[in-house]
C-alpha cells in the first residue's frame, strides 16, 4: 500500500543516528563482540585543489619547472628529497612529518591521479571524486556510500544492532556530503569537534540557547534530539581521553590544529572500540589562485602553512596510532578535486589544473611511489595541464580490494565499472569472511513474535538454517523463564507457542541463537 512505501522511503532519507531504537537490555552486554578486528579507512579531503607540483616536486624536471613557475617554485636546495628515488623527487620543505613517514615505510605516493575529460569546476570535480562518476554523468551516491551499502545492505533499517552498534562512518567537522551518501541515505553520522570536546548535536546548529522562553524551549528540543540519537550515545561512550598518546599534534594557532583535532578524535574513537569503518576529515584553503607563497620567499605562505598542517597532523596521527597499538588497523588517504596549472599566474598563485599526486599512509601501505614524476614539457603555456597517469577509481579499487578485501565483482559493483586496482596496500591481512557475512546479515530480522503485546501466550516464528537452535525467554531482570527450544532443527520455518500465563505482566525478551547468529526481540505481556 502506498502509505508504507512512502514511509519506508522516509526512513531511507533519514540520517544516521535516527534508526529504530533498540532496547538497552544490559544482558546483551557480554554478547556484543567489541574486540573489533575491522579495518578503518581515514579519508583526508583537501578542499580547493592542491598544487601537486609544489607538494611532490619532480626535481628531475626542475629546469622546465623554473621556466614556467619561478614565482612560486620552491628553491631546489630546500626541497626535502625522498630517499630511494635517486634524488629525482622530493617533498615541500614544510612536510618533514610526512617525510618521516616515508623514511619509516609508511607512506605511498600515487602520481598523476585524475580522470578522463577533467572538469575544472570545484563543485563538479569534487562531486566526481566523491561519487566516482565519469565526467559526463551525475550519480546520486558516493563511492564510500556504495561500499557501506554493499557491506551493510539493510542499513538503515534494523540499525543499530548487535553486529553493528556503531555508526558505519563518521564525518568530523562538516555535514555528510555525497561521498558518504547512498540514494538519499546518509551512511554516516556527522560530529562537530570543538577544542574542548565532542559536539554531538549532529548538525551545524550549535548556537547557545538564549535565557528566555524560546531558549528554554530550544534547550528542551535539543535534549530530546540528543536522547533520540543513539549514535550520539555510542560515540560519547567510545571517546576516551586516555586514548591520545602522541605529543606531536599541532595545537592552538599552529598550522593544522583543526585537522589535528579531528584526527585526535578519530584515534580516540578507534581506540575506544568503535567498529566504524570510515572516518572522513578535511582541510580547506587549497584554492591558491593568489599569494600561494610569500613573494620572494616561496617556502613561506599560505600553501606552505597548509602543507605543514597536513604533514604534522598526519604524522602525529600515525604516531598516536602506533603508541595506541592500533596502527595496523588504519589506512589513511588524502585527495583533492584537482591539481593546479603547471604555469603560475601573475598573482603569485596557480589556477585550476588536472592530475596531481595523492598520499596513502599507514603501517600496511606498500611504501613507495606509484607511477612516475609528471612530465613537464619544455613548451608549457598557460593552458597546458598535466595528463593523468592513474584514474582515481583505480586508487579506490586498490583500497577496496586489498584493504577492505572485496572480491573483484564486489569492487566493480561499488565503482559501477571495472578499474584496474593499484597495488597500494599489503593484501595479506584481509579480514575473515565470517565477519563480512555477519555484516551482510546485520539488521536482518531472524525471528518474529506475534501477537505483541499479548495477554497469556504468544507465537514465535523463526527461520532455522539447520543445526542446533536455542530459543529462550528472559524476564526484564535477566532470568530465564522459558526454555522453548534447545535442539537440532531442520532448515526452514518453525513456530513455537510461548505460554507465559503464569508470569506477571511486563517486558520479556525472546532470544534466538543459531550458531554464530543470534537475535533478541522484546515482547510485552499485558494485564
Amino acid at each position: 500500500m502506498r502509505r508504507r512505501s512512502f514511509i519506508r522511503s522516509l526512513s531511507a532519507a533519514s540520517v544516521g543516528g535516527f534508526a529504530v531504537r533498540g532496547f538497552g537490555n544490559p544482558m546483551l552486554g557480554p554478547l556484543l563482540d567489541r574486540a573489533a578486528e575491522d579495518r578503518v579507512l581515514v579519508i583526508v579531503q583537501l578542499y580547493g585543489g592542491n598544487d601537486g607540483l609544489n607538494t611532490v616536486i619532480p626535481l628531475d624536471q626542475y629546469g622546465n619547472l623554473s621556466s614556467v613557475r619561478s614565482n612560486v617554485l620552491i628553491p631546489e636546495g630546500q626541497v626535502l628529497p625522498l630517499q630511494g628515488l635517486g634524488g629525482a623527487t622530493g617533498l615541500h620543505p614544510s612536510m618533514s612529518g610526512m617525510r618521516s613517514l616515508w623514511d619509516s615505510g609508511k607512506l605511498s605516493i600515487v602520481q598523476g591521479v585524475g580522470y578522463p575529460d577533467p572538469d575544472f569546476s570545484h563543485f563538479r570535480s569534487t562531486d566526481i571524486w566523491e561519487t566516482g562518476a565519469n565526467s559526463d554523468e551525475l550519480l546520486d551516491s558516493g563511492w564510500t556510500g556504495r561500499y557501506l551499502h554493499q557491506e551493510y545492505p539493510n542499513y538503515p533499517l534494523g540499525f543499530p544492532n548487535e553486529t553493528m552498534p556503531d555508526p558505519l562512518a563518521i564525518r568530523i567537522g562538516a555535514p555528510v556530503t555525497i561521498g558518504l551518501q547512498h540514494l538519499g541515505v546518509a551512511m554516516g553520522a556527522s560530529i562537530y569537534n570543538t577544542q574542548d570536546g565532542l559536539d554531538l548535536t549532529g548538525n551545524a546548529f550549535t548556537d547557545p540557547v538564549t535565557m528566555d522562553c524560546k531558549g528554554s524551549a530550544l534547550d528542551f528540543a535539543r535534549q530530546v534530539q540528543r536522547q533520540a540519537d543513539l549514535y550520539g550515545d555510542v560515540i560519547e561512550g567510545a571517546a576516551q581521553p586516555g586514548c591520545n598518546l602522541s605529543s606531536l599534534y599541532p595545537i592552538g594557532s599552529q598550522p593544522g590544529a583543526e585537522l589535528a583535532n579531528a584526527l585526535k578524535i578519530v584515534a580516540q574513537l578507534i581506540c575506544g572500540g568503535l567498529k566504524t569503518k570510515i572516518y572522513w576529515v578535511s582541510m580547506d584553503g587549497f584554492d591558491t589562485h593568489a599569494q600561494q607563497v610569500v613573494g620572494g620567499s616561496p617556502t613561506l605562505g599560505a600553501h606552505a602553512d597548509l602543507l605543514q598542517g597536513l604533514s604534522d597532523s598526519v604524522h602525529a596521527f600515525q604516531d598516536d596510532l602506533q603508541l595506541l597499538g592500533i596502527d595496523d588497523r588504519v589506512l589513511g588517504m588524502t585527495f583533492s578535486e584537482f591539481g593546479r596549472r603547471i604555469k603560475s599566474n601573475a598573482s603569485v598563485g596557480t589556477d585550476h589544473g588536472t592530475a596531481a599526486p595523492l598520499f596513502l599512509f599507514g603501517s600496511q601501505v606498500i611504501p613507495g611511489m606509484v607511477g612516475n614524476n609528471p612530465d613537464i614539457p619544455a613548451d608549457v603555456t598557460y593552458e597546458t595541464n598535466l595528463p593523468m597517469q592513474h584514474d582515481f577509481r583505480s586508487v579506490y579499487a586498490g583500497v577496496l580490494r586489498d584493504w577492505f578485501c572485496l572480491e573483484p565483482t564486489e569492487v566493480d559493483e561499488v565503482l559501477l565499472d571495472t578499474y584496474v586496482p593499484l597495488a597500494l596496500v599489503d593484501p595479506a591481512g584481509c579480514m575473515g569472511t565470517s565477519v563480512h557475512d555477519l555484516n551482510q546479515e546485520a539488521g536482518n530480522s531472524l525471528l518474529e513474535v506475534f501477537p505483541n503485546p499479548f495477554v497469556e501466550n504468544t507465537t514465535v516464528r523463526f527461520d532455522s538454517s539447520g543445526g542446533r537452535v536455542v530459543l529462550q525467554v528472559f524476564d526484564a531482570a535477566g532470568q530465564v523463564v522459558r526454555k522453548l527450544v534447545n535442539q537440532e532443527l531442520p532448515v526452514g520455518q518453525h513456530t513455537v507457542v510461548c505460554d507465559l500465563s503464569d508470569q506477571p505482566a511486563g517486558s520479556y525478551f525472546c532470544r534466538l541463537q543459531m550458531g554464530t547468529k543470534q537475535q533478541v526481540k522484546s515482547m510485552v505481556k499485558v494485564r
Partner: protein
Amino acid sequence: MPLVPYTGPFGRAQLLHLLRRSLFGATPADLAHFDGLSLDAVIDELLTFTNDTAPPVKSYAVGGDPNALDPSVPFGTTWVDTPRDPPDDTDVIQARLVSWAAWWMRQLTGQQRNLREKLTLFWHDHMPTQLGVVFHSEASYRMQQLLRTQCGGNFRQLIHDVTVEPAMLIYLNGRYNVSFAPDENYGRELFELFTCGHGSGYTEGDVQAAARVLTGWGIQEDIDGTPILPQTIFRPLFHTATDKQFSAFFNNTVITGQSGADAGEVELNALLDMIMAQEACSLSICRALYRFFVHGDIAPEVETDVIQPLAELFRQEQSAPDQIRTVLRALLTSTHFFSDDVIGCMVKSPADLVIGDIRMFGFPLPDTALNEADLQVHLEFYWLVSYAGQTLAEPPNVAGWPAYYLHPAYDRLWLDTATFPARNNALLGLIYSTIETPSDTVLPASADLSFRTDLVAFTQELQNPSNPNALIDQLVELMYVHPISPAVKQQLKQAYLLFGQTNDIYWSDAYELYVADPNTTSMTAQLVPDILRWLVGDMQKAAERHLY
C-alpha cells in the same frame, strides 16, 4: 480591564509569528502578500472567511474500474449526498472515509490566507469525534463541515448544533440516551471537556441531570428500509419528562421537564443558558484557545492579565454571531501575543510541522481535476502527519490531543525520543521523497505522475537567490524563529553552497547558469538542485525547526 493591545513595531518578525500561528506555515508568497500592512489589516484578512468548500468526490476505484466500489455514485461526483446502500458495506465506508480524510488534507495544504482551517482543527480537538469509533462517512463529513462553517461564529450556537449532530450522537452515545436507561457519556463530557471544564464545580448530580435533559435524541437512517442520509430526530417517548434539578454551582437551577415534540430542543436550550451563565465556561473556552494558539502552560499573571479579560469579552459577546472571531482578534492582537513569553516558545504540532513545510516549500499539489492523483498525494500527506504523531480525525480519546490539555508539559508532549526521529524523517522526506501515482487509474491523466518538492522553484520566490549570503539569510528567516549566528550561516554556506570553497562566486555562477537553462550541459550547474536539497535537508535537522 480589557486585554492590552499590541502597539509595538509590526515588522517581518511579528508578521511571521502571527502567520505561523494562524496559518499552517508561512510561505514567501504569504509574506509578500501581507508586506507593509498594519496588524489590524492583517488580522482583518485572517478573520475574513466563509465555508466555501466544494465537497469531496468519488476518486476511488478498484483496479481502474470506477464502478467496482460504491456504484451508485458516478466517478468524479460527490458521495456526500448519496446514502450508502447497503449501509453496512465496510469497503464503501472505508473508501469514503479515506476520500474525506484526503479531502480534509487538501483544505489544509491549499488553505486560503485566513484562520478557518486552524479554527476548524481547534474545534475538532476541543469537541472531538473519532473517525474509527463513529465509522460513518457522511456523519463525519457533516460534523466537520459544521465545525468549519461555525468555527468563528457563536459558541452557544456551535455547542447546540454539535450536541445534536449525528456524529456526536453516535460518538458519545447520545442516541442511546433514553429515559429508562440514561447514558451520561455526553452529559459528562459536555461539562468536563466542552464547556465548564473539569473541576470547575459541577457535581455528579449535575451530570446525571444533564443526561436526563438530553434523553430522547436519535438518528434516523432509513425510511421503510431505504437508506437515507443520517437525520437527527427527537423521540418524545424516550425523553425524561420530569424536572431536572442542578446544584448550587448552577445556582440550583431547575429545568422544567417538557413533553412533546419540542421537549428536547426546549430543555437543551435551557441547559445551554444555564451553562453559559457561568463564568467557568467562558474561562474554559478562552484557556483552550490560548493553549492552542499561544502557549501551553498558563502562568498566574497570564490568567489574570489575559485569560480573565478575554473571558469577559467572550461573555460580553455571547449573543454575537461572530463571537469567536472577536475573541480571537483580541488575543492575537494583544501585547502578550507578541511578547518574548510567547514567540518561539511553542512546539509545533505535527500538523503544523508537516503541513507548514508542504506549504512553505511549495510541494506541488495535483490539479483537483486529477482527482485520483489528488487523493493519492493527500493520503500520503495524511499518513505523514500521522507518522509524525498526530492522526487527524483520530485523537487518542474524547479529551483531544494531550498537548492541548495535559499539565505540565502541554505542547512539549509532541516531542519525545520516538516522535523526534519521526518528525525529523518527515521533514527530510518532504525535501527528498517523491510521491507517485499508480498506473491503473480511471483517468489516464492521473496515472504515473510524480510529485516532488522543487527547491529551485522555491528559491526563485526569494530575493536575489544567486547571492549565497542572501539565500542563507532568507532560508533561515523562513525556517526558524530562533536567531542563527553568522558563524553557523557561514558553515552552511561554505559546506553546501560553496561545496567546501570560500568564494561566493562559485554558487552565483552555478545557480545563474542553471536557472537560465535547466538543461544546461554544464555539469556543475546540473548539481544545483542537489546542492539545494542537501542544504535544506541539513537545515531541516536543526532542533530549531520544531518550534514556533
